[in-house]
């Protein structure tokens, strides 16, 4: 940092004074702001906040004027005018490059690390929002976004350099991202694509090693806003729990009957949808899988270990409980359509069973919990807090309705949340 160094050399103790000034000044300004926010906010203040919340940066003066004017003199209701202003803010590149990137990045890795690099998972979320794609396709679509027309390394099924370079260059993702078919890039057949589930980043995070249950758990966590603890139901039939789940952990079967069965009885028959997927990598020389890639066992492929298309990991630790379920195909069933997890709000027009990741993704994406989860995540992102009271819950409900009734376009809850939390 040569410039910073020159300041230090030139100013010595004065540098510390600057720093102290910023610190003290910040505290003073925060206090001033806390006072300010209690006062009624006018259209300019509302426009300023909406822009900050949507794009993560303050608006340029001209954009602030435009939004404020819209809020003040727009043709709709006060709420509709505020939403219209929010849609203007969404035109800012940082809505995509910053807000949506940070919004989606924690979903792309097990640690929910917000600092992870841009990847095909997060880029696909960004592109889908930009293009108003039905957001349910995030778990079903033959879709991926990339930037083929800029000077960065091309898309690769075995590394993430394309996206890392895009991020490093600070490019306007809203301009450079182009929609493509996953199947044309990855070799996974169209019917086996399932939105972000079958992106390289998704596979690297959740199909790597293990048993593929992580993909289900994290999809549930990120897109239905539920961890397994919340959906635990020990009364479901355990007939699809695989052999690798010991029925007597440490010699005490009570643990299985009271705990393990609660998640596995529902999770294992769903996770069977991923039975043909694996993320192949070199665990010795590339333990993080940076150069690994998604592999799908197409029709006709026979895994040497299982003797079917099912990948080896599904028969992992088969002697832990020899009369456990042996996976022979990718048929999945949703046992949670009965019992307490009916509350998830499954789509009654679907059957609750199917073959492969795409139809299982459809089962999840068409649940009421999926829509509510997306809306609630947006609410938190824009309002900077959880919904806490009846008014907030009512707003969430109305946003879920409008999200569901308007083609599942994610910009809609962004606009509605920004209007709801605009202040004033």
């Amino acid at each position, binding site marked *: 940092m040569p410039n910073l160094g020159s300041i230090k050399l030139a100013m010595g103790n004065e540098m510390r004074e600057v720093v102290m000034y910023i610190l003290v000044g910040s505290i003073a300004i925060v206090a001033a702001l806390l006072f300010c926010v209690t006062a009624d906010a006018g259209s300019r203040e509302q426009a300023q906040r909406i822009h900050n919340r949507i794009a993560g940066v303050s608006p340029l003066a001209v954009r602030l004027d435009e939004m404020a004017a819209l809020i003040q003199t727009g043709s709709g209701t006060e709420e509709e005018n505020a939403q219209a202003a929010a849609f203007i803010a969404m035109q800012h590149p940082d809505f995509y490059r910053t807000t949506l990137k940070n919004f989606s990045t924690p979903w792309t890795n097990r640690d929910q690390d917000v600092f992870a690099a841009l990847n095909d998972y997060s880029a696909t979320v960004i592109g889908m929002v930009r293009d108003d794609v039905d957001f349910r396709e995030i778990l079903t679509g033959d879709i991926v976004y990339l930037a083929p027309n800029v000077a960065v390394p091309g898309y690769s099924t075995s590394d993430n350099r394309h996206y890392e370079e895009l991020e490093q260059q600070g490019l306007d993702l809203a301009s450079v991202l182009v929609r493509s078919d996953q199947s044309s890039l990855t070799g996974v057949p169209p019917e086996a694509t399932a939105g972000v589930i079958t992106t390289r980043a998704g596979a690297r995070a959740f199909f790597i090693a293990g048993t593929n249950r992580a993909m289900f758990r994290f999809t549930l966590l990120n897109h239905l806003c539920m961890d397994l603890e919340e959906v635990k139901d*020990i*009364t479901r039939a355990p007939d699809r729990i695989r052999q690798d789940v010991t029925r007597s*952990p440490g010699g005490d079967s009570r643990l299985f009957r009271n705990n393990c069965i609660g998640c596995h009885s529902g999770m294992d028959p769903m996770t069977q949808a991923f039975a043909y997927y694996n993320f192949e990598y070199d665990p010795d020389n590339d333990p993080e899988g940076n150069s690994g890639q998604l592999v799908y066992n197409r029709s006709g492929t026979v895994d040497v270990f299982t003797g079917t298309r099912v990948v080896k990991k599904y028969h992992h630790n088969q002697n832990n409980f020899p009369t456990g379920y042996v996976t022979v195909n990718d048929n999945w069933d949703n046992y949670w359509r009965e019992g307490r997890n009916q509350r998830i709000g499954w789509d009654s027009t679907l059957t609750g069973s199917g073959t492969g990741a795409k139809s299982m993704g459809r089962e999840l994406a068409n649940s009421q919990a999926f829509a509510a989860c997306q809306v609630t995540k947006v609410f938190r992102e824009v309002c900077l807090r959880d919904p806490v009271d009846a008014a907030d819950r009512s707003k969430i409900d109305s946003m879920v309705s409008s999200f569901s009734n308007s083609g599942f376009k994610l910009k809609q809850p962004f606009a509605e949340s920004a209007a709801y939390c605009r202040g004033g």
Partner: protein
Amino acid sequence: MRFTGLLFKSVARVGLTGLLVSILSACSGGAGQETEENPDLAAPAGSSQSLVLNGPAALTTDVQGFRVNLWENIAPDNRCGQCHGSSGQSPSFARNDDINLAYEQVNPIVDLNQPSQSRMVSKVGGGHNCWLDSDQACADILATWISNWAGDSAGTSNAVELRAPTLRDPGASKSFPSDPGVFASTVHPLLLAYCSNCHTDTAANPQSPFFAVSDVIAAYAAARSKIEIDDPPNSRLVVRLGGEFHNCWTDCNSNASEMLAAIETFVASIPETAVDPDFVTSRSLTLLDGIVASGGGRVDTNVIALYQFKTLSGSIAYDTSGVEPSLDLSFSGDVSWIGGWGINIGDNGKAQGLTSTSKKLHDLITSTGEYSLEAWIASANVTQEEARIVSYSGGNMTRNFTLGQTLYNYDFLARSSTTDGNGDPAISTPDADEVLQATLQHVVATFDPTNGRQLYVNGSLIDVRDGAGGTLNDWDDTFAFALGNEVSGDRLWRGLFKLVAIHNRVLTPGQVLQNFDAGVGERFFFLFGISHLINVPEAYIVFEVSQFDSYSYLFSQPYFISLTSPVTFQGIALRGMRIGINGREPEVGQAYSKLDITLDDSLYSAGTGQPLSAIGTILGIEKGADSDEFFLTFEQLGTHSNVRVEAVPDPLPTSPDGDALPDIGIKKFDEINASMSSITGVPTSNLDVLGTFLTVRQQLPVTANIEGFLSSQQMGVTQLAIEYCSSLVEDPVLRGNLFPAFDFNAVPVSAFDTAGRDALLIPLMDVVLGVNLGSQPDRNQTRTELESLITNFASSGTTAERTRTIVKATCAAVLGGAAMLIQ
């Protein structure tokens, strides 16, 4: 001639009831006679006394096999020979006057195909004059001797003869209550009054079972097996008096009636379990109705120490290998018995043999130069390190062999001429494979001079390289054999043992697999009758059932079968099968509730029936293995149906309102970076900025929660602000765009005159604070602060560089403040 095969089994089990009566009659006196004399079995096992065989030589090799393997072990007069000798009670299988006559006598009470099912074994196991403290241990040892006699023919048959059980409706039978209260006031007083001279552990000649002890709980536990609550007149407590004239106190008939009346009063107090009348149910069964599955198939030809942990009480694990001397293991610390046979090692636990009896391992293994260590175990966790599972050692640093655990690995230390005295270097299962799991596993460690050490887990040879094995000449015969710890007691292993066997030969890979496939523990076949529901004669649904551990049963691999052959049936729907226990369906573990299958003779074979499922499931033990009653229910079976519709769950209650949360927040790391870039015009890709941002990125806020803002985060914001402002001021184009009227080449005195300050501060505040925004800091106050800063800095320095430095500082003071940070 050897009685083998299925014919013998059926004959043996049915016909021996009569034989048993004669045996028992012979052992006891008639009405009013004195208590039978118990043999003196106090002499230590194996110290056979004056065993001399007279008479003709064995006529066949099988007779000779009987003599060598069984007779020589049971004929001494401190064992069966005391009563069942030449002039003793019938059957005289321990006679020493003619081995061929003894052979004739023993045949009806042994089952060479299933030695453990021999009448001799069950008789002793039921409490008949065991020479050890554990009846079960004597039974197991007898079974081992019979197995040795049977040789290869023992236990190799997996065929099971299915027999129709007694048909009962679920709930029609009663279960023993857990509370012994009524027993204490009905049956127990009679037992105390008339049976306590013998059937207590404190009697001069204690006779098990000890149902006449004063501790009512212990007495109740012992008496339950002698009471038939579904058929009180057939209770052993009654039959022994009325039919077998066993030590009656006055008149046998009236004594039997008195006992029967007490039992009937007790039974009458037990309520029947109600079964939902809408259920479509099979007939019911208890564990006693189960047909014992062949436990055979194990290769124990060269076993020299064997622990099956069947005793379930006391503090000794008996060596039931039948190889003298018995290497029995005494418990210390927290060692507890577990259901379904086994022991659990807890705090400071250890099961250890004497050095004197452990010496047999040394003697028998060094004579062959090879051995196998086999165990069915379940580690309590995968976090324990340097834990000793099975050890034959002298302490921490010296041993003959040890099987241990380190995290996910099994370790095998085996002393030989190629290792040191501690068995090092050890071999271990590979770290990455995580072979050791905290569940029941079959582990075999072998050693031989050619292949050295090898490890098998669940029947598979683990790929661990080892050199040649060398010799065992350096083995120490003063070491002790222990389970669950080092003999020094400081290498605890937490977990379960279900079986441990030491062989003085190497098990081949095929034999290891055979022993793995044979499994561990007792298994039964349950035949749930369903002929009353479908038009098929003698129709049953068969489950293989075992006690999985102390808390659960394992039901597995059901199939449909008819005991009538040939049989025809078509298109019988079977859907939604559940297992019922004690009149109700447990909510948890119903693995067959999704079953939807059609019974059809096209899918049926006479021997194996029609498979229903390959799945197993565990269900919780309720009253106990000797009391629980099982049945099946069906949503549909044939024309009978009881469709279940699950209730719609109530909606979740509305969450209470939470505390009000701040309406504002702080920008997050990327937003801060983007904001500074937007304000200054310096692109985020600027190398100086990028470098600093990457340095401080993880120091910046990651959530918008203003209440979580930290001073360290402000330091990161400050560093980044300074970098942006520095890059801005050093770039003539960018600074010209933002501050077009400010002279960056002037010295401070002139640069920061009134006009210069306007040229700097007004655009700076415009871009950072915004214009006409009531939610931002007051511009006048902010300007006053900045003016003060400039005045202070401008009082020294006389160069244009100094001017630019002051601009950087002023810029950073605004850019790094809350006006940018708060959203």
